[in-house]
């Protein structure tokens, strides 16, 4: 279980970072989304993995830490809002600058100069 979660987080993070380093806004937003998924999973497991345990004391045997679940809920809400904002901003930049390069450049020659 631990290995599986670790691998999932690692794959999400590396794909996210790779996409973040691209030059156009759309892959970057996609990369950000993947990165936030990885981060959310990471927060979730910061309270240790307790498969089969409930978060409520008294229901079943033992319980798992409820705090990371509250944290991850907050983090998800915030990351949704931020992704929506950056999406709108990217669309606006596309309209205003005429292309979706993060530096507002279109041609290879422009990037060089």
């Amino acid at each position, binding site marked *: 279980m631990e290995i599986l979660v670790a691998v999932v987080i690692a794959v999400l993070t590396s794909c996210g970072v790779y996409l973040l380093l691209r030059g156009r806004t759309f892959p970057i937003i996609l990369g950000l989304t993947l990165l936030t998924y990885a981060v959310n999973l990471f927060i979730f497991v910061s309270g240790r993995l307790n498969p089969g345990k409930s978060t409520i004391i008294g229901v079943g045997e033992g319980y798992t830490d409820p*705090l990371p679940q509250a944290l991850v809920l907050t983090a998800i809400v915030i990351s949704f809002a931020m992704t929506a904002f950056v999406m709108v901003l990217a669309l606006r930049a596309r309209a205003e600058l005429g292309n979706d390069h993060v530096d507002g450049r279109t041609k290879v020659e422009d990037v060089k100069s």
Partner: protein
Amino acid sequence: MSHLIIAPVLLPLLTAILLLLGTGRPLRVQRSISFVSIIAQLGVAIALLASAAEGSITVYALGNWAPPFGIVLVLDRLSALMVFVTVVLAFFSLWYAVRGNDKPADSLHSVLHFLLMGVNGAFLTGDLFNLFVFFEVLLISSYTLLLHGGGAARIKSGLHYVLLNLVGSSLFLIAAALLYGLTGTLNMADMAEKVAQTTADEAPLMNAAALLLLVVFGLKAAMVPLYFWLPRAYASASAPVAAMFCIMTKIGIYSIIRMYTMVFGDTAGVVANLAEPWLWPLSLITLGFGVAGALAARELRLQIAYLVVVSVGTMLAGIALNTEQALSATMYYLVHSTWVCGALFLLADLIVRQRGAASDRIIIGPALRQPVKLGALFFIAAAAVIGMPPLSGFVGKVMLMQAATTDERTFWLWFMLLAAGFVTITALSRSGSTIFWRTENRVAKAEKADRGALLAVITMLALSLALSFGGNAVVQYTDALAQQLKNPSIYTEAVLSHKAIPGVHHE
């Protein structure tokens, strides 16, 4: 009194909501609501400052959940001073904005109050995750403020700013989750006690978490190599927004001071002072890059934005020295640089408006309508930011240099600070002489500067003089503040001994 500590968060929140509901109402109504609220906040900030000056630490448990379980607000000397500095800066930005700068869109006032809520909350909270939440509140407000007024340049620099900060937020969450996994708490006071008990085999992970946090706060503070977003973003923002943004880098500085003196400070056992070897060289490099940028800048506002980077370098050096005297000097310098940089951004806007097509480029342009008035103000502001006597920058730099006379780092600090001062003089005299003296033989067709706006700038610069002549009182406060910071047990005990109010039950 006991509930007053939450007022710096609630007042701007309620004002912002009220202003949102009033969208479409005459600008006059919105302006008065916004202005009345900021004056009330100023009153609250002064009351909090007075209460913190007595040396006691006020703890406010939200929802009556006693620490370490609930979220707490903590008022100590540091947070009281930061809130005060913020509200004063916001007062002047608003004052300037209501003189005609808030016209392009009517949401400026509302978002500015949301920003204030985030900033004040970040300074007052005693909980790491709550700090993240307030960071997000202030960041999303700052995104909208930065884009206020629109235009391709703003969108372009805004996109960089937003994307970088989103990555920063992700890193913040990773660091917070790591720290929670290691210590089992998010309350900063509780965390300080848990971190002190770190064992040697936990130390590498703890180091990783702490340094990841340093990256996040360094990004907010615009530390090398994470400052590249700042100059363009600040230079393209509208004047009151750019002035207000002068507090943004200080939030990073504040968080660094808070985390690396209290949680990872002298008392942190095996991970004590782990950020210091990084902060010291990076602060001097930041200083160097800042002055190089100021010297190379071809636009006035870009140059001022680089001066913000210079001030960040200076403050980080003070933190890295990690002595009581140096921290006191850093706090004094922080107050000075926030207000003076704010004044400079507002003044630059007044100058730009009278230069017609030349705008803020440092080239030969038409003569200004009021060259003497604006020129004199520019001279005073430049002197303050460079650190010439008798203005506050001088006092701050001298205090910092006096603090560094004990070890081998003295030479580097003195050399960098003095060299930075010299290069800044060169840079500012170039822009000043070009803009005010080397003009074409015609006067720009521009209106005279608005009297109210001019008065706002003059008053802000007068604050610099006041900081210098009333320096004794300020230094007394910052000395006591540094003493409080270097004894984190006062803070942790105050927070952890706080009990829930009996008789109030949770449902």
